[in-house]
């Protein structure tokens, strides 16, 4: 099965089959940044992938498109790969940075 890098931000996985695609969809669902869903026909959908269902009769993913209001639904069967194009918003070091700032303030 496909092995993701330590940080998936910027990752452009080469999907070899359904098991790889299922794994990449799960990683994209867990990712707190925008992604680009690439269709088998070359179409692209960009946005925040907030939901997926592998159990639905016709499995799908759902994205919030930055420009649109309603979620966009893409059939898993139409997906070639998903690129992790947006910044990972959960990768920040805000707590560590706060501790550093506090320590610096105490030393000053």
């Amino acid at each position, binding site marked *: 099965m496909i092995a993701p890098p330590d940080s998936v931000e910027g990752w452009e996985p080469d999907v070899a089959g359904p098991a790889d695609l299922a794994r990449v969809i799960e990683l994209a669902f867990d990712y707190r940044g925008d992604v680009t869903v690439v269709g088998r026909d070359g179409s692209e959908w960009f946005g925040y992938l907030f*939901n997926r269902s592998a159990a639905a009769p016709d499995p799908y993913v759902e994205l*919030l498109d930055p420009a649109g209001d309603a979620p966009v639904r893409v059939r898993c069967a139409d997906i070639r790969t998903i690129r992790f194009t947006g910044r990972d918003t*959960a990768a920040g070091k805000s707590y560590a940075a706060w501790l550093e700032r506090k320590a610096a303030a105490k030393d000053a």
Partner: protein
Amino acid sequence: MSVPVAQMWTVATYVLGQRLRGRKRYPLVLMLEPLFRCNLACAGCGKIQYPAHVLKRHLSVEDCLRAVDECGTPMVSIPGGEPLMYPEIGRLVSELVARRKYVYLCTNAILLEEKLDAGLFTPSKYLSFSVHMDGLREEHDEAVCREGVYDDAVDAIREALRRGFRVTTNTTLFEGVDPERVRKFFDTMMDLGVEGMMMSPGYSYSKAPDQDHFLRRKRTHELFRAILDRPKRHWKFNQSPIFLQFLMGKHDFSCTPWGNPTYNMFGWQKPCYLLQEGYAKTFAELMETTEWDRYGHKSGNEKCRDCMVHCGYEPTAVNHTFGSLRGFRDTVVATVTGRP
């Protein structure tokens, strides 16, 4: 316990009604998240890490009310993000109050005085401001990663109380907290005049920036015993005494994830307020399609192993109270003696 009698009565009749109808799983408190935007970035928070275009969005009041009607709980908690940043918070709250829902508006209180001055809210037995306070000044400002927030929140609490609003506090406790400081914090909050306090151990959100300070189960029991073993008479808690006993290790409960269902811009969150394993379009779909057996402390699910958070276990405590004579007696004894 400080929950007003009218509210207790509403909850008791609702729970008994559900049981009489033979409903095995029923919701108790809707967790309504109208937005994820916040004016803080607390170390233990896993709720706000989204791309900017997601943070800019919010639910409409109509969407919120549809969710409220769909699940039918007597209580609605509005966490976030920061609900006071929701542009329609005044209208949402007045619609909920008109529906006689007991509303807990969970806020860090930074904007509270401004919104009170703007006349957005009217005092009501149905509305409580549940102010996020993670301890005394030093501990709170550290938890919220900003200095001065404690003082602002205390000023806002005073002002809300002066204007006749119900005010409670909600406190999340993390590893390393000093039980004596927590006891002092309880004294301070009661002296301020809040109606009651709520507390919970933190949940180790995988997306939270501080991963080192979440409590494990045994440590949770030790910590809460140290805090609550000798409770002071004037401490009042706005939560079930049975839940407090659970935190102290006196009960071995399983969670009730459907007890506090969560609705936000993604839909109905599976399975609970803490985990995001997918979204359902309707409340009925949430209840029918979630594989509930995969969750909870005893399920072996790694994500549930150390969880003792109020949104999962408070409904269990309420079920315990109304599920047996023993449970009811436990609750009455704890309420009357003030000893969890």
